[in-house]
């Protein structure tokens, strides 16, 4: 071997070593989270730009790979490989210099988010509707306003402040605040300050609240108070209007107000009533309102919940823990039961859905909530029980 030949041979070996070293450096380790897993019998491969089709075919042939699909816009191929061989196939593809990358076809699942509110373990309803999974996808937004038309809200409660962004008193009460307790409880279910290491969590998470006081301190109100509250909420940007109230008589005034708010783009939610009957409760029974029945921990119909085909969906409504007006400077919390407690679960969920791709209109939000309920077997019809995770696309 001449000196020139030896020099050329040494250079070739050096170049080859460099190429191998470079390839090894570029190829990352196969990283598979055994918890999340991957699709059996297929991997994802991208070839370097300019790789000849014949070379691509050759690589697949050597690795017993079969192209199932090509993601044209990003140049990635879904390649069938023998089941059980996925990791080895990825390593083999990566060793080919024409391959830009190869990876397993990982199974993606949404991560849940568990807020640090200390009373969360007692909030069985949030677990039942799979709220933590939903919060892994969206925690809502402070641009979403949920109007609580009720007995007022204790805006200074440590688990509510600073959520109340607007307030108006339509009653004869001397205060827009809550002397009854019902409104503050409802507000907390819909959107208590969440992940603040204090008290309870609210399903609407980052959604904010509007306090429309339409029920007096005794928990009752007139049709005109309610209608005024609905119009005020719609005119002041409420994407969601919660009405944990009802009566047995139809009111054309309230129905007109409901239709006005619906026309302005609000999602309206109301309690189906607690008389354990199929009789209609208004405003829940109006076409443009989501009528909400109550379920218990076992997904059974709450013994008191009204029922019938007119009830659109169900939500937890028995022994619900939420905020209660302060005593002095002390924050208080109470357990309450009723379809009053079920409605704000739906309102809070509507707040979350508004921030997803399904949040294009009030019709879309309502349809999404109703289309993603979990079917439940009940003694009387009250619709399916809402599932927050499914509604926001977490599962």
């Amino acid at each position, binding site marked *: 071997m001449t000196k020139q030949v030896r020099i050329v041979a040494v250079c070739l070996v050096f170049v080859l070593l460099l190429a191998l070293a470079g390839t090894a450096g570029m190829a990352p380790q196969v990283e598979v989270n055994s918890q999340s897993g991957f699709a059996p019998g297929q991997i994802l491969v991208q070839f370097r730009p300019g790789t000849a089709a014949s070379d691509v075919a050759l690589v697949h042939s050597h690795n017993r790979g079969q192209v199932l699909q090509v993601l044209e816009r990003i140049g990635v191929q879904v390649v069938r490989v023998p089941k059980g061989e996925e990791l080895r196939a990825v390593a083999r593809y990566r060793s080919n210099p024409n391959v830009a990358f190869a990876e397993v076809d990982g199974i993606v699942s949404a991560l849940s988010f568990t807020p640090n509110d200390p009373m969360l373990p007692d909030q069985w309803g949030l677990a039942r509707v799979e709220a933590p999974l939903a919060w892994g996808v969206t925690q809502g937004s402070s641009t979403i306003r949920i109007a609580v038309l009720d007995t007022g809200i204790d805006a200074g409660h440590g688990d509510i402040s600073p959520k109340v962004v607007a307030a108006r008193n339509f009653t004869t009460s001397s205060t827009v605040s809550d002397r009854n307790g019902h409104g503050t409880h409802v507000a907390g279910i819909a959107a208590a300050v969440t992940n603040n290491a204090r008290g309870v969590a609210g399903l609407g998470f980052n959604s904010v609240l509007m306090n429309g006081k339409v029920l007096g301190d005794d928990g009752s109100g007139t049709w005109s108070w309610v209608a005024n509250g609905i119009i005020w909420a719609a005119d002041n940007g409420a994407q969601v209007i919660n009405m944990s109230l009802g*009566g*047995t008589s139809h009111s054309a005034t309230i129905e007109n107000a409901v239709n006005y708010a619906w026309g302005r783009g609000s999602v309206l939610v109301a309690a189906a009533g607690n008389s354990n009957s199929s009789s209609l409760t208004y405003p829940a029974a109006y076409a443009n309102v989501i009528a909400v029945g109550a379920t218990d921990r076992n997904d059974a119909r709450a013994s008191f919940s009204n029922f019938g085909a007119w009830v659109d969906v169900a939500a937890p409504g028995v022994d619900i823990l939420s905020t209660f007006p302060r005593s002095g400077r002390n924050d208080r919390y109470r357990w309450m039961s*009723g379809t*009053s407690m079920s409605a704000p679960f739906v309102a809070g969920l509507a707040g979350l859905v508004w921030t997803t791709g399904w949040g294009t209109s009030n019709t879309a939000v309502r349809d999404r909530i109703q289309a993603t309920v979990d079917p439940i077997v009940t003694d009387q019809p009250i619709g399916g029980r809402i599932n927050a995770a499914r509604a926001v696309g977490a599962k």
Partner: protein
Amino acid sequence: MTGILDACNKTGSARAVRLATADLARRLKVNKREIVLHSVVPTAWPDASLGCPEPERVYAQVLTTGYVVLLSCGQDVFEYRSDGRRKPVFAGCRNREG
């Protein structure tokens, strides 16, 4: 009467009895001493109407616990309903024999 009131104090219904008695004395224009406590019965209603809904009003749809307070004055028995916190609702008069 004293025994019942003691029980009321223990169960937190004393306020309901006191307010109901004052309201009835005012209605009947009699001295409160002429009114006798007949019974106090813990009760739960389906909403904030305390079982006395007016057709043209709406009510908070929350299960509401409280008391049915029966007071008598002469031959008549009067019913009040209270959630134990606010002014009791006058629910009507029953004739003692009725």
